[in-house]
């Protein structure tokens, strides 16, 4: 019996033990949450982060730095609906090779959380990463977070991303979104359905807006992206403002204001577009007085395989 065999035999023993269902784990999770709630401090922007967690894929880019929020002076360059209409045109005007189902979308993602005066910064501070996302999720994706230049001491983090159907519907895959209708009514319904998982029970416009934010947080086929912008342009309560990052790039943002911040605080959810090309740059969620979270995705490209080093990365949790 050689050295490999004894461990190999052991690994097979009771290996048919199934992964527990969410139902099975629910009581333990409830007990943990009950304890956690007794430790909760007066909250700063928990609801915000929770929503961002659900809003998900969103999380991306925006270089480190202050984003100054200010409204346009007069004359306003465009109405929010006009910005979104131009963005819809830009989405389909940009050349974009259609990926095959067995390919990966590889893109860069930066996310940053900033708190305001006196509010504890709850992290995640600054994340710079690269993502490889299987177009139809038939293969594990890959996440690579690199230490940012502002925090070189941070450890690198790599993870294989596996979808777990038992967790319920996550963010739809690129392939699924590609199959979505571009018909306004049907797509509006899809977005509201998605948004309901983030802001359950809210009015249709709010759910549609959050659904749109969620879907736009990762590469989306141009036709669907354009259709989403068109739907968003019809939502009540949208307005424009100017958001500027530290690279000096000034973007034009479409913002919708609600009271879904912590304790009913005002929350401003924005999509930020390039000021001249109207290409989507990213977004921002801001709760005045508490803080904001910025994200963007950039440099999407297609690849057939994961980098060779991914073979040594452990497969862990679920997406």
């Amino acid at each position, binding site marked *: 019996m050689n050295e490999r065999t004894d461990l190999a035999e052991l690994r097979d023993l009771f290996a048919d*033990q199934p992964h*527990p269902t969410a139902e099975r784990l629910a009581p333990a999770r409830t007990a*943990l949450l009950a304890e956690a709630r007794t430790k909760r401090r007066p909250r700063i922007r928990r609801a915000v982060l929770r929503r961002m967690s659900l809003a998900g894929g969103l999380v991306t880019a925006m270089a480190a730095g202050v984003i100054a929020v200010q409204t346009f002076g007069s004359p306003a360059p465009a109405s929010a609906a006009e910005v979104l209409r131009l963005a819809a045109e830009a989405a389909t005007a940009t050349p974009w090779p259609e990926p095959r189902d067995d390919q990966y979308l590889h893109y860069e993602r930066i996310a940053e959380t900033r708190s305001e005066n006196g509010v504890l910064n709850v992290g995640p501070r600054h994340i710079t990463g690269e993502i490889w996302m299987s177009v139809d999720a038939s293969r594990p994706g890959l996440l690579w977070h690199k230490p940012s230049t502002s925090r070189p001491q941070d450890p690198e983090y790599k993870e294989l991303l596996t979808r777990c159907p038992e967790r319920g519907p996550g963010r739809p895959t690129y392939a699924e979104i590609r199959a979505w209708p571009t018909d306004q009514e049907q797509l509006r319904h899809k977005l509201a359905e998605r948004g309901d998982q983030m802001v359950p029970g809210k009015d249709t416009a709010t759910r549609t807006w959050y659904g749109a934010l969620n879907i736009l947080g990762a590469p989306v086929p141009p036709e669907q992206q354009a259709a989403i912008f068109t739907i968003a342009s019809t939502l009540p309560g949208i307005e424009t403002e100017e958001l500027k990052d530290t690279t000096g790039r000034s973007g034009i943002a479409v913002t919708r204001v609600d009271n879904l911040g912590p304790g009913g605080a005002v929350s401003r959810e924005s999509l930020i577009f390039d000021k001249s090309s109207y290409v989507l740059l990213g977004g921002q969620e801001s709760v005045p007085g508490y803080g904001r979270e910025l994200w963007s995705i950039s440099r999407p490209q297609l690849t057939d395989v994961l980098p060779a080093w991914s073979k040594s990365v452990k497969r862990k949790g679920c997406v």
Partner: protein
Amino acid sequence: MPLSTTLSDADLIERSWRDPEDFALLFDRHAGHIHRYVARRLGDDAADDVVSETFLAAFRQRRDYDTARPEALPWLYGFATNFIRRHRRAETHRYKAYAKVGVLPDAGDAAEQALQRASAHAVRRPLAQALASLKSRDRDVLLLVAWADLTYEEVANALSIPIGTVRSRLNRARTIVRDVLGSTDPTTEHTS
């Protein structure tokens, strides 16, 4: 992709220092792995309790977590191992029962029992007997390597023991396992 998947475990734990409920994201990420590991040792029902105790204990000690370690699974397995020890007798009883009849005492219905019996070939039953005969601390190390897929260094972190101790415990355990397997002819059916 949820934000929770974009953060390292260390980031999540650090966030839970101020936002305790975020610890649930760590639960979502790892509870399944811990549960399956514990269930392989103790069965599903005991695993339910151990997982709950593990995450409550980890939550209460979250401020002691060394955030220089991005992955928290070894840390969580450490807590789980401590709680598994409270079920030591039940665990060895379980292995012995399997060694004897090829079925775990907590196996479900007749169909599941039949499946277990069919897979309990000549190697698995003596292997279970070997597990039952190990010292519990040696078994902890062996199973963290074999079933939880931890590296020696991760086992050392999980159990707060030197890496040399991990090696010696593992060697001791594997010697016993190899002895059992070496005396077994896997081509014949075990008939006890």
